[in-house]
């Protein structure tokens, strides 16, 4: 029983990371109306930046602050230099552009850090486990749950309780109306992309002590982020969390009994949900 409980906890921890990925992607996709195929690569860059920064500085916490900010800056630059010119063209060219970026980023990772991945230990205070009564559980994973939960909460507060968050939600609903009201829509786009990139970057950074880094991590995460958005709906915070937790827990439970199927199950769950509810969990658009 405690084994199943531990697996469910594992699922919640990875599920929260999936939710962060999906949330960032759904902000970018919802507001900019582009298919962001570079989202997984941004996740991978966040992970590698954390590993490098933590090794250079020798402090995990500073690295955890710096690495996602680096990814956000990268996102800012990508929007400002490239994507900004592509709002008027079709999704096909936008896709090609972001896919090209993903290739450039993931190949650059191989050129800079090498083709072989490596693992990374959590900071000393978060090593070892904690007795939760029903099971003994790694501290770092508990930290990831709390941290991801806080990030989701802050994003939610930002979107629901601040003026700029309200503008962002309005941007998802109706861009023309927002710009008619005198709001600089281009600035909104830049901010949204940087914010989405930040969330991908911090999800990547938080993953490192659990799974280490490897050049393929970006693509794997891209598909998962798509699943979260397809199930949860664009710009739907609750949807992203629900979808992230469902596939995270499903994956962890299947991994316990049938390891080979643990990745396939993510997509199988998505297909099954869509068979019953083609419009996704909460049925927007």
């Amino acid at each position: 029983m405690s084994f199943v409980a531990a697996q469910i906890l594992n699922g919640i921890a990875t599920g929260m990371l999936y939710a962060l990925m999906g949330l960032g992607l759904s902000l970018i996709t919802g507001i900019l109306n582009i298919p962001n195929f570079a989202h997984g690569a941004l996740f991978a860059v966040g992970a590698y930046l954390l590993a490098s920064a933590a090794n250079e500085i020798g402090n995990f916490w500073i690295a955890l602050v710096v690495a996602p900010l680096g990814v956000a800056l990268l996102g800012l630059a990508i929007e400002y230099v490239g994507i900004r010119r592509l709002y008027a063209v079709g999704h096909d060219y936008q896709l090609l552009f972001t896919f090209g970026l993903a290739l450039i980023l993931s190949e650059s990772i191989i050129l800079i850090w090498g083709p072989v991945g490596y693992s990374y230990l959590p900071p000393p205070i978060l090593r070892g486990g904690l007795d939760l009564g029903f099971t003994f559980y790694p501290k770092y994973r508990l930290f990831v749950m709390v941290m991801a939960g806080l990030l989701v909460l802050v994003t939610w507060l930002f979107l629901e309780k601040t003026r700029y968050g309200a503008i962002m939600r309005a941007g998802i609903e109706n861009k023309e109306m927002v710009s008619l009201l005198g709001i600089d829509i281009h600035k909104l786009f830049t901010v949204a992309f940087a914010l989405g990139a930040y969330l991908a970057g911090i999800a990547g950074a938080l993953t490192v002590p659990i799974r280490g880094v490897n050049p393929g991590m970006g693509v794997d995460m891209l598909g998962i982020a798509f699943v979260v958005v397809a199930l949860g709906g664009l710009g739907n915070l609750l949807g992203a969390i629900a979808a992230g937790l469902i596939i995270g827990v499903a994956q962890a439970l299947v991994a316990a009994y049938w390891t080979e199927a643990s990745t396939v199950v993510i997509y199988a769950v998505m297909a099954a949900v869509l068979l019953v509810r083609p419009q996704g969990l909460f049925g927007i658009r």
Partner: protein
Amino acid sequence: MKRPFILILVSIFLLPLVVRPAIASEIWIFAIFGLGLNLLLGYTGLLSFGQSTFFGSAAYVAGWLLKFYGINAFLALGIGVGVGAASAALVGYLCVQRSGLYFIMLTFALNQLFYFTAYQWTSVTGGEDGMPGIPRPVLLGIDFKDPLVYYAFVSVLFLISLYAMKRIVESPLGKILQAIRENEIRAEAVGYNVPRFKLLAFIIGGAFSGLAGVLYAMLFGIVPLEAISFVFSGNVVFATLIGGSGSLYGPVIGSFVFIWLSESVSTLWARWPLLLGMAFVIVVLFLRGGIVEAWSRFWLWRSSKQKN
């Protein structure tokens, strides 16, 4: 109308003189793959980023039957077309119910479902190592092991595919698909069942992909894992877009350029996807419209100069 056809015929004859027959065959195989995608992308306005699902599934199934049961080449091609169409029907059923960005993301996610299945099902697919040992069967006493003979076989199938696709896009069905591309709501209002026609386009596109997949497996004697991965899905989208998705011949020209370039560059540098990514970015920022459009713009520019 006649001129492109003659150009293609001439290139079919000249190509093996310039490049290795294997690459020449790959070009026309990829062109068949591109024709299938372009029915979706160019004619129906559906950007599918999961075409390798059908290409790879057909290659694996037909490859398995060729390898262990030594089936006849025509049967293998037929099975490939069937598997391509059937897998496209499954994927399409889930995808056509959503539109826009959701649609694109779903095609990719379902592609991942098939990819990871192939990746993990090592007893059948060979996982990361691919499925080797696929024979090129002897047919009607002709030995397809000779690369040039196989090239001729591929070329004939390519011409048949091109003709079939031409007939499809010029048929009433093709016109309905184009109507959906132009204005989905209006097509619905006129009384067409839009999701059903989208699904039909998906299935036809899948059949072409399946044919290409089996030819690819027989050409190289192996089904590599990439054949069912997002890499192939992306490559065919790119090839079609550089050729120009607005024309029937766009994907043909695109795969010609794409395969030729990638086969010559990928042998030089292992990190060539980096260059590919840069090419994507440059094409999107500066050369939108593809080769066909650039070519017609060039002719327009020339004829306007001659008039002056």
